[in-house]
């Protein structure tokens, strides 16, 4: 598992979707404190929750963490990448069921 900075993660994610046009890609998000094994300052540990994001295509794993200050920009970029990858292959038939 490679822990990347948010920006390299996004480009890896993009590549992963590109490589797996016929395969499967999983993206998992969870809340985590990423706590180090031995913490010398237990008081500060409280506030250090971040959003952990992992991407996996069955062969490679990449992951990143997004802090409360970064998530807005990151979430936008990630949604754009995902939509770009998904839009072409999903069916266009409109069922008029949204809204």
């Amino acid at each position: 598992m490679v822990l990347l900075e948010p920006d390299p993660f996004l480009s890896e994610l993009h590549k992963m979707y590109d490589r797996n046009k016929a395969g499967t890609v999983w993206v998992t998000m969870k809340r985590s404190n990423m706590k180090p094994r031995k913490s010398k300052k237990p008081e500060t540990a409280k506030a250090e929750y971040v959003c952990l994001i992992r991407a996996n295509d069955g062969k490679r794993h990449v992951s990143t963490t997004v802090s409360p200050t970064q998530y807005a920009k990151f979430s936008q970029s990630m949604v754009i990448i995902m939509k770009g990858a998904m839009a072409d292959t999903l069916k266009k038939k409109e069922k008029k069921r949204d809204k």
Partner: protein
Amino acid sequence: MYVDDFEAFYLAAIDLYKARPLETRYTIKFRQGKVVLKVTDDRTCLKFKTDQQTDLRQIERITAIFFPLMACGELPAEGEQ
């Protein structure tokens, strides 16, 4: 468990997350022509499956809500060491 109605899935998913913020994960599985969203805390598992392009907007919406929830959501009351 698959939920057919997105609105029901959306609300149930958020409730599930709020009950156990640290144990709940959200997965977007994408395979050509098909997307499966899964939210689980290892006790309850909610899934939503679609192959319609129009549902992309909904996927975008739920993903956008989980980011703030997971990046700066409320801290769990009992989750201290």
